[in-house]
């Protein structure tokens, strides 16, 4: 009986989280359009609803009702599976994210590692999409994407080791608790910089949006996609943006905990911090040009990799000395 109750509660939580995430993602796209529009002296969506507030719903409807095209020479099964393979890992990760002290689906002892592992699967969807489309632009996009995500996963993985050493646990809730006094960003500024850059690259956001560089590769790996399948890629991109931001908040900014003198619920703190992260993501997209493929690799391997290794050594050394 207990088991059944547990499963039911978990199912309800999952249902809530998945649906809220979808909705938030839809509105995140709206926010991105608005923010970039204002950076560019435009208004952005204004027609559907008050200040275009219903635009995401209209977009969703449009994408939903669009003809679902599978190119003639495409590998049908892989082509259809690819968007699913992109979206599912992005959503599965939410299982372990702590939204507040009490609201989470589950917490496990390999929490952070689980997040890294599952989000590393997103690259499969991209590669599958690029290959199955049987289009040269898609293939080039997929190749770029595979190399980029594989490389930056390494820096992402190494950059979280610093905070992990301080927290002494992979459990996300415990990492948050470890930052009750001081946020790790003050102890680990280098790790945070590397983490943030790697996060941009992992989510294919500007200035690392090479896999879908529209001015070079048309739309990269999702060139041939339309309708709902295209929407899946979009949802996945923004969902994983939120995941990676949440990880950043948990590791470096004290998660759902805020300073004690401002009595706000944990969830509100989380949402506030998430909004800041999201805004920076969008802001960068409006500001920066795009890196070139070889420059991206150079930045990663010649600059960030030594930096993050140095950070790990220093952290270990200092922790040994002072803690």
């Amino acid at each position, binding site marked *: 009986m207990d088991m059944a109750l547990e499963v039911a509660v978990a199912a309800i939580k999952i249902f809530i989280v998945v649906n809220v995430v979808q909705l938030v993602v839809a509105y995140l796209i709206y926010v991105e359009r608005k923010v*970039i529009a204002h*950076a*560019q*002296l*435009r208004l952005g969506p204004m027609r559907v609803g008050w200040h275009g507030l219903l635009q995401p719903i209209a977009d969703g409807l449009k994408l939903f009702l669009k003809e679902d095209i599978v190119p003639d020479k495409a590998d049908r099964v892989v082509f259809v599976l690819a968007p699913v393979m992109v979206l599912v890992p992005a959503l599965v990760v939410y299982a372990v994210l702590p939204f507040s002290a009490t609201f989470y689906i589950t917490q496990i002892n390999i929490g952070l590692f689980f997040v890294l592992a599952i989000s590393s699967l997103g690259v499969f969807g991209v590669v599958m999409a690029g290959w199955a489309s*049987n289009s*040269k*632009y898609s*293939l*080039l996009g997929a190749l*770029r994407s595979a190399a980029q995500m594989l490389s930056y996963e390494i820096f992402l993985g190494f950059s979280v080791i610093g905070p992990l050493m301080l927290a002494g646990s992979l459990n996300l809730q415990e990492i948050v608790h470890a930052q009750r006094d001081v946020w790790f960003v003050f102890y680990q500024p280098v790790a945070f910089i590397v983490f943030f850059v790697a996060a941009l690259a992992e989510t294919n956001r*500007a*200035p690392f*949006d*090479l896999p879908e*560089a*529209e*001015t*070079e*590769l*048309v739309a990269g790996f999702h060139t041939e996609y339309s309708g709902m399948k295209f929407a899946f890629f979009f949802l996945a991109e923004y969902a994983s943006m939120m995941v990676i931001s949440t990880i950043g908040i948990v590791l470096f900014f004290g998660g759902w905990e805020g300073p004690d003198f401002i009595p706000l619920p944990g969830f509100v703190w989380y949402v506030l911090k998430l909004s800041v992260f999201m805004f920076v993501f969008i802001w960068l*997209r*409006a*500001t*920066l*040009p*795009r*890196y*070139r*493929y*070889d*420059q991206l690799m150079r930045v990663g391997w010649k600059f960030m990799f030594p930096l993050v290794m140095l950070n790990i050594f220093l952290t270990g050394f200092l922790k040994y000395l002072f803690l």
Partner: protein
Amino acid sequence: MVGVANVSRIDQQSTLHGTEELVINMGPQHPSTHGVLRVILKLDGETVNDLDCDIGYLHRGTEKIGENINYTMFIPYTDRLDYIAAPSNNLAWVTAVEKFFDWEIPMRAQYIRSMVGELSRIASHLLWLATHALDIGAMTVFLWCFREREMVLDLFETAFGGRLTVNAFRLGGLHEDVPEKFLQLTQEFVDIFPSRVDDYETLLTNNRIWLQRTRDVGIISAEDAMDLGLTGPIIRGSGVKWDLRRAKPYAAYPYLDFVVPIGENGDIYDRYLVRIEELRQSTYIIQQCLEQLPGGPASCKTPRTIKPPEGEIYHSIENPKGEFGFYIVSDGTTTPYRVRIRPPSFINLGGLKKLCVGQLVADVVAIIGSIDIVLGECDR
């Protein structure tokens, strides 16, 4: 019968998944080939091994049309060549035809011609900067540039009624004098514009990513640039101090003060700096025109039918894209015997292969952007 696109030298059938070479068809509907340019790239990984341009999708036989209509009627057709900077083309045509005659073009008309010519240079360079930055991924500059380009187009509308294809000048001067409002608005524009150029520069000039993407990419030496016939900002970016407004002055340019900016390395970044400086210099020229603008008529007396004497002339002006000239053979009738347009985009595009081979795909896009082509004039 429907014509098929030119069969390329590059074998389209090479394998898709082969390790060796990948043939990519960029355009004619690719987002960053600026119109209907089709570039067939032969890639080794991401490096360009060979490249072939397929142009002509916009070929309308403008030269042939020119041989069948009279000199005045051809002015609107020139609008459709480099439609980004239409008044500049008008200027080239009218000054070319006027070379047949010894008309005394009123100074007021000359100054307004120079002014509008510079405005069209600003319009063209702004569109270039917008799309070039977008190609490299900086999307905000795009809309910022369009804001000012819109102001320039509004000025054209005030003066001539048209915005894109303005049909600005007539043989012998202007159709009619520009309204006073045009001069006021131009003054306002000139006052605002330099600070706006500063805005673009804050986003790009010292941006590390921008520098990495443009420095030492698409380098062309001065010798090679001459050999390839490149003109305009490209050859100036390679360090050749040559501007037709100085070398072979026309309109009011002999009386105007400006600097011809040049680059050092001949890479994309130098071309960018040259064009940015040209934006400032153009503003300065317009300011001078406004200050020095003489009164008097806006057009000289011209005969009802334009009938140049027999002979052949070549006249060119400094179009935003490069040397834009007309070679006209007159047989003494009202229609030209032969009209040849010297298209800067066409000839500059001929240098694309030399610029691109050995670079990466992402650079091809940047290089096409830095050449600043407009297909209407390239394909004619």
